[in-house]
């Protein structure tokens, strides 16, 4: 397999774009990435497009119909919340395998205000189980992941709430973030409960967004980078949920993350202490807490202590092992298909001292990771290095 580098990245501010179409949002991000790479769509050999809610509607081709119909192979990818990162991985594989020298990945989503997800179904509504035989809504499912940690380790509500406070503080430095308001611990604790223990500010918002990346071989990097610092894809890992006792009843988001994390560190030849920043899948504050341990940022049962000691907080705010300095899904937003590519953009920007992360630059960033969970389940981890 060949080395693969990220030559260009592009992202539009996450938010609400009711007057634009999915292909337009994706096309805008693609053009930003192409410009950043210093190439044109005519140079791209293959294109992997991640979108979930129109996954039957040829979004990738429709993006090319907006920005350049060059006739290249297009793959439309759907993999729950890991949709964008799986598209990135398909582009990575195509370059690593030597099939193409330049590949493009776009993640795009227009959610409107769709929110609870899960728990719906077809047929006679009398047989819908949601609310009658428990809940499959995301706030309840991820709420229980946090409650499980509470049960095992005595984790407190304040620990989950602190994650939201941190996320919102981080987001104030990110112009790409959907929300940029600070919230206090009291605001978070006293906010409307959505799915215990997650209050409103501990749930990611819904919204629209797009992000794109251009991946190239080492030869192309030398030819096109022009001395600019570019990040290498040191690991691109994808796992699905292995059989565990309760997985089919209460989705197990930890085991597949732990497997992916182990593989990613091994592939990249580094460990958690070498990671300057982590972007992880904080769809809910409860999810972020369990992933601190799943990604080895702290030991098992130590997530509460990690938070209390400033873990996950940007170093400029007195913290260590920064997590989601972009604001994370909780504040930056979570347009499902866009998330996985946007997280990679954030990591790349810190590693390459890109102006787009100027206000929140993590110092001495040589390696970073982007983690995504798609419930159902899929987990991706990308480690990038310079």
């Amino acid at each position: 397999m060949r080395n693969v580098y990220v030559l260009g990245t592009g992202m539009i501010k996450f938010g609400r774009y009711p007057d634009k179409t999915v292909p337009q949002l994706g096309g805008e991000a693609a053009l930003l990435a192409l410009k950043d790479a210093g190439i044109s769509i005519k140079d791209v050999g293959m294109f992997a497009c991640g979108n979930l809610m129109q996954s039957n509607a040829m979004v990738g081709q429709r993006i090319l119909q907006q920005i350049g119909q060059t006739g290249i192979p297009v793959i439309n990818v759907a993999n729950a919340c890991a949709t964008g990162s799986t598209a990135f991985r398909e582009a990575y594989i195509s370059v690593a395998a030597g099939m193409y020298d330049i590949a493009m990945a776009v993640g795009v989503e227009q959610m409107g205000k769709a929110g609870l997800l899960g728990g719906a179904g077809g047929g006679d509504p009398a047989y819908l189980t949601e609310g009658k035989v428990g809940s499959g809504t995301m706030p309840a499912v991820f709420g229980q992941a946090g409650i499980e940690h509470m049960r095992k380790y005595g984790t407190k509500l304040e620990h989950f709430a602190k994650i939201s406070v941190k996320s919102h503080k981080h987001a104030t430095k990110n112009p790409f973030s959907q929300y940029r308001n600070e919230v206090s611990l009291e605001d978070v604790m006293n906010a409307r409960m959505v799915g215990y223990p997650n209050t409103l500010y501990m749930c990611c918002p819904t919204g629209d967004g797009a992000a794109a990346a251009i991946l190239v071989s080492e030869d192309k990097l030398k030819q096109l980078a022009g001395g600019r610092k570019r990040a290498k894809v040191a690991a691109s890992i994808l796992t699905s949920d292995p059989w565990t006792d309760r997985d089919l009843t209460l989705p197990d988001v930890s085991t597949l993350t732990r497997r992916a994390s182990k593989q990613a560190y091994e592939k990249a030849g580094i460990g958690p202490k070498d990671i300057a920043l982590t972007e992880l899948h904080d769809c809910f504050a409860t999810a972020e807490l369990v992933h601190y341990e799943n990604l080895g940022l702290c030991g098992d049962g130590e997530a509460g202590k990690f938070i209390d000691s400033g873990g996950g907080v940007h170093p400029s705010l007195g913290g260590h092992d920064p997590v989601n300095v972009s604001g994370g899904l909780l504040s930056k937003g979570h347009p499902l298909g866009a998330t996985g590519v946007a997280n990679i953009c954030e990591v790349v920007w810190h590693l390459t001292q890109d102006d787009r992360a100027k206000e929140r630059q993590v110092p001495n960033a040589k390696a970073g990771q982007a983690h995504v969970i798609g419930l159902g389940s899929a987990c991706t981890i990308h480690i990038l290095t310079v």
Partner: protein
Amino acid sequence: MAEQAQATDTGPRPIVPWLKLAPKPHLEGIKCACGAMYLDPKRVACSKCGEADKFKPVVLSDKGKVYVFSVVHQSYPGIKTPYVTAIVDLPEGISVRANLTDVDPAQAQKEPHKIFDLPVELVTGVAAKDREGHDVIAFSYRPTKN
């Protein structure tokens, strides 16, 4: 009461296939020779060991213990909130998702540790009427009454 209901062509129907209404309401799962258990009987093979045709039906206990729970405050139109959703571990070694009734949602949030390992028992009731006029029977769990 639904507890006396009989499953006949014109009678009540269970909301999910693993709820059996006769001779009295109970849950039934399937167990693979490898030990893995499932609620839904319609299954191609075992997702733990990969073997097909090694399943046997297992009648599940009416009593279990709460593993974890959440309190749902926001749901779809027509679903009354707040309510407690829980994962209940049964002694046979399988977990079931269901509503927890007779537990005050506010109290559960205040003292979550009192819900962990809470002994519970199965109860059933009419949840809806289907398009053909059958009563649809759902199950939930409530704290065990001594």
